[in-house]
């Protein structure tokens, strides 16, 4: 569960370029929530997601995850609770490292990385099983550098990596924006399956209204750094793409 309290943030404060990216945002995300955040460019969607992830530490307000006040923790310290998927499909994996190495890091996301050898036979077969779920044939390429895979394959791996170690929150920032439609659909389906299977709190920033109505069980529309309109679990089922689109104007 995540609580965002009275959160506000200004970029380049005190300069002519000052931008109020978030103004007094209050939000509560519960377990099992699949929250889709919509809004035009510059409305503060990504800033909100980054404030929760700890990439930016907001000027004011609090972020509380599962009862822990994480407001002052940096992104790598919040990874104990939060797994992330980026807009750039190549950003979520390390290109020069093998699939095995990448998944090893993901499997100890919440733990310290010490001088142990984590990649043993047991781990290898575990990874082969996990990867085979993706049905991309990657289970036979475990020692291959991830850089040799396609963007879609790497984004699928990133999603898989997100749930390898005790995730409770999954933050996705336009995860399919750089992918072709068929791959994008597969990635979203995979994300939805994983969120349900692991009972995660998920937050998806997207411009795809189709994905919003298909996967979201809550929808938030942002405007000028504030939550402008919200559809809860009940109203979310009724809302249509046509209705959503009117709020962009």
């Amino acid at each position, binding site marked *: 569960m995540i609580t965002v309290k009275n959160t506000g943030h200004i970029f380049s404060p005190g300069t002519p370029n000052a931008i109020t990216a978030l103004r007094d945002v209050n939000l509560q995300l519960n377990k099992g929530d699949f929250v889709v955040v919509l809004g035009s460019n510059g409305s503060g969607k990504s800033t909100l997601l980054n404030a929760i992830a700890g990439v930016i530490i907001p000027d004011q307000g609090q972020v509380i995850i599962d009862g822990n006040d994480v407001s002052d923790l940096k992104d790598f310290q919040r990874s104990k609770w939060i797994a992330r998927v980026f807009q750039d499909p190549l950003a979520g994996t390390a290109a020069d490292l093998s699939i095995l190495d990448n998944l090893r890091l993901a499997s100890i*996301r919440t733990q310290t990385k010490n001088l142990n050898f984590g990649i043993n036979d047991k781990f290898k077969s575990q990874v082969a099983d996990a990867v085979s779920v993706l049905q991309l044939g990657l289970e036979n390429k475990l020692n291959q550098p991830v850089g040799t895979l396609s963007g879609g394959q790497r984004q699928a791996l990133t999603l898989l990596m997100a749930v390898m170690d005790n995730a409770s929150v999954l933050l996705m920032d336009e995860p399919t924006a750089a992918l072709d439609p068929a791959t994008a659909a597969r990635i979203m389906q995979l994300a939805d399956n994983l969120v349900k299977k692991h009972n995660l709190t998920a937050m998806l920033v997207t411009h795809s209204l189709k994905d919003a109505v298909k996967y979201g069980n809550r929808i938030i529309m942002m405007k000028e750094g504030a939550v402008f309109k919200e559809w809860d679990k009940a109203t979310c089922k009724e809302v249509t793409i046509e209705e959503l689109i009117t709020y962009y104007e």
Partner: protein
Amino acid sequence: MDFYTAALLQGLGYAAMGLGIFISLKIFNIPDITTDGSYTLGGVITAVGLVSGWHPLLTLLFVISGGVLAGIATGLIHTKLKVNSLLAGILVMTALYSVNLGIMGRPNIPLINVNSIFDLLPASESINMELIVFLLTVLLLVAALYYLLHTDFGIAMRATGNSERMVRAMGINTGVMMITGLALANGLTAISGFLLVQYQGFADINMGIGIVISGLASVMIGEAIAKMFNSNNILLQLVLVVAGSILFRLILAGALSSGLNPNYLKLVTASLVLVVLVLTKFKRSRS
């Protein structure tokens, strides 16, 4: 002694520095100029320590600590003060010149009648003690790095140069990782200073000028050969850095023995590095 044996020994001696550059350049994408200073620092501490009668291994401990501190300084300036990594290296290298001069008290210290690393094993006429010591050191370092880079910590370190966002999302403090990497790299570089000073028999304040280029050359030659094998194997890459270091010294020795004016050595060195750099670039874009 044979010209080429000397080149082989130098190549092995500089291999530690090559391995250090492998970490800073290949893993963190930082061409770390601190190297010039930390190499000399290693040599300077060696000379002062051995002349003062310290045990060579105790001296080595101080040498590594010195290099590690130099790397930490560059790392802190880069990550905490947000100074460009190249500039951070230049700053620390420049500062180290004074530090080195301060430690030595004069610009040059000859090693006469000191107990060096070559005296640790019982001497024998039939074996080349320098070769054995250098080989053993390089072997140990390659094995240690191979081990380190395969641990969970090592995987995290290798990932850091790839995607900072991913690594932070995996709960890794990229700043600390970078400082650790630079510390390790410069600790290795200082070991080269330690070996070479005992091999050549003196420490000189100017011994490190432009030395970083030798390290870059060995890494790049190694990389060029690795491309031929089309392999991502870490052990192979480490071994090829050592091979690159030896090859580079052999090329220089070859150039000198074929009548190259030693004044042009650095010019040839820089050109050689440029050629290898461009060659590997073209290969990369094709693949």
